[in-house]
């Protein structure tokens, strides 16, 4: 998952015509010059590949191209209609919401009855397909089991008590450049005042600000940093299995659940392949596959009912608010003054 710098530029209405930067391209199914189903996504191929393989196994005649780009690039490409993709996937819920609200999505017509929780979609255009808890990753070798903080309040106390150890050893998203980081930080600020206290404390420890979760996880694993705050669960879990020094913590005061969302862009003329893929992705077969075979959580995951402190970020028009020019500037000013001291 990568969130690139251009988000801010877009929100500031600086419409610089920059071509869409595709980071990776992967093909599945039948080899064709022009693919039947072209997906533009911000989700790393490592995480999403099992789903594509499963769909391709069921539909071998369909040729699929899965292209990844940063969520802000995706936003810009869709809002300028400079693309020819059938599906737009992104974890930046707010940007996706804005695109759909502004009329860049088409209604989805499912090929069969699909049972979805009400909170997982907006109108019949924007659909969430997986849940991601947002957590903290620590370098296990630097923590005693009993010292691990379970709430933000405990984290604040812990950091205050161990200032010397954690100075310059904390890493988090640079919200000015990362769309996902911005979303997590704004939802934190909305959820609880303790976020700003934590930001102040972290700011006092001269944190490192990073663009991407992969880089943060690598750095923590190597002991370069001891603590990475606001990391997407699926990436962290996947890395922690390979990199044994990583320990993922989900706070018990609240843990936000990100909804990865998908929509069919307005300029798609033939929506058949997109509708078919969405039907697979959201029906029982697809959702059970996501739950059992990938690092993502399905919409029907028991995690929500078992853990009342897991709070899905609501997929509604409230998400538009932090994309407002003034609101965003105000938030960034406060965030900067807290984190960058």
């Amino acid at each position: 998952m990568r969130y690139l710098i251009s988000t801010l530029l877009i929100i500031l209405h600086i419409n610089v015509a920059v071509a869409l930067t595709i980071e990776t391209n992967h093909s599945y199914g039948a080899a064709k010059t022009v693919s039947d189903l072209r997906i533009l996504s911000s989700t790393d191929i490592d995480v999403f590949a099992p789903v594509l393989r499963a769909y391709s196994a069921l539909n071998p005649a369909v040729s699929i191209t899965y292209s990844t780009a940063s969520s802000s690039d995706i936003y810009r490409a869709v809002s300028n209609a400079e693309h020819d993709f059938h599906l737009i996937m992104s974890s930046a819920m707010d940007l996706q919401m804005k695109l759909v609200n502004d009329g860049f999505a088409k209604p989805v017509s499912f090929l069969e009855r699909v049972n979805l929780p009400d909170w997982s979609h907006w109108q019949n255009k924007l659909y969430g397909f997986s849940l991601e808890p947002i957590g903290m990753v620590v370098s296990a070798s630097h923590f005693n089991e009993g010292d691990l903080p379970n709430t933000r309040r405990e984290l604040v106390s812990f950091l205050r008590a161990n200032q010397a150890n954690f100075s310059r050893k904390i890493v988090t998203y640079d919200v000015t450049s990362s769309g996902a980081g911005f979303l997590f930080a704004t939802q934190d600020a909305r959820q609880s005042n303790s976020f700003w206290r934590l930001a102040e404390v972290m700011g006092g420890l001269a944190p490192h600000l990073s663009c991407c979760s992969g880089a943060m996880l690598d750095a923590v694993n190597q002991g370069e940093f001891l603590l990475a705050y606001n990391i997407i669960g699926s990436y962290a879990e996947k890395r922690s299995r390979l990199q044994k020094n990583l320990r993922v913590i989900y706070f018990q005061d609240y843990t936000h659940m990100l909804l990865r969302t998908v929509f069919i862009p307005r300029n798609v003329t033939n929506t058949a392949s997109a509708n078919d893929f969405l039907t697979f992705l959201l029906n029982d077969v697809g959702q059970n596959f996501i739950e059992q075979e990938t690092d993502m959580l399905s919409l029907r995951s028991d995690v929500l009912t078992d853990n009342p402190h897991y709070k899905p970020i609501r997929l509604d028009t409230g998400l538009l608010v932090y994309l407002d020019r003034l609101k965003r500037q105000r938030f960034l000013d406060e965030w900067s003054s807290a984190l960058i001291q």
Partner: protein
Amino acid sequence: MNKKFNLSIRNRLLIQLSCVAFAISLCLFLITRIVVLQAITATQDGLLTAAIQSVIDKIYVVENSVSVDLPYDTFSLLGAVGEDRIFYRIDDNGQFLTGYSDFPMPHKFGNIQEPEFSNVEHKGERLRIAATENIVFAMDKRHELRIIIAQSQNFQKSIATKISSNLVLITLFFFMTAILFAFLTANLTIKPIYLFATDVKMRGPNNLRKVSSDVPTELKPLAQSLNEFISRFRSTLRQTETFIAEAAHHIRTPLSVVKSESELALRKSKTPENRERLRTIIKSVDQTNRSASQLLDHAMVLYRAERPETEEFSILYAISEIVTQFKLAADLRDLDLTFSTDASPTQTVNLDRTLFETSVRNLLDNALKYALSETTIIIEFKKTKHNFQLTIKNQYSSAPFLDQKQLYKKFKRGEQTGEIIGSGLGLSIVMEAVSAIGASIEIRKTKGDIVCATLLVPY
């Protein structure tokens, strides 16, 4: 008469009431729908007003400029009910400040309490706009902030659709109920007319009593006219009957004089020719006299049929008395009269005795007149399951063909009446009397040239 005129009043009422019910149902549906839509619009306006107010609350001054801290929850709530799209724009002194710069500003703006509402089509969506103008001072500089919040109308549509489908059911139920009431009303309305018509229809041919005046006001003129008509008819009829009776009476008196004078002349007459003529005269006088008597009887029967005077009497006694009276006449004609019965004298009937006796008397009279000499007239009276049955049998030399159609007609006589004196009124009197008391008569020929008259009197 055209077809429409023939349509029954009940069906007419039903059609008219159904049309009215349909019209009312339709109005009810449309009016309720309009009211519901107004209510939904008012709710949406209320929501937009609250949203604009909460945005205004979040306006703050930074140095010499103004800024807005958009309220998250307000925007969240705006889209909560119908997943509505939201657009907003804030201008500061005519300059775009934040929101959707391409959103067209309306011409009119309200104040904080009462925003100006309008509808606009934007990006393929019909939107409801709330527009407010608000003045803010920052470092003595006047800032005229124009704030608009626009919301799509999914919320309105979804609620309107839900309510409309319920409304259709309610309207349908109302319509069906109205139809049911229309049906009941039509039946209730038609009932007095039906009763009146049945009352008139059920009365017998000789029933000339007034129809009941206990009818609805609308039918009173009809009942009144009918009663006046009956009254006139009755008076005409009575005049005719009185006239006939009086005429008969007036004829009878001079006739008896003619008869007695003729008999005197016959006794004194010497020539056989004169005696023969006188006999013819006497016979004609008898004939005329009998006709006059029958006419009187007939008039009496008609009169009593109109207002029968019912009384309770022993039917067996009444018949026995008549039979006794006829014994002498029978002897004179060399006829034997046998009377048998299995009925009890205590069994009574409740009807006009005179009419009953007149009919029995006329039947016996006929039997005596036409019976073959030196035969027996058999009279039987018994009680059957439903009636009292009186049978009179007499033997003919050769019994005539009995044309049931002609039998009871006035002044019609049978084929073999020959020399027998008669007016042709006897059976017609019997018929009138019998129908007046609710009895029935049957005369038929049986084996051995026997004519059998059966009178059935209900209990």
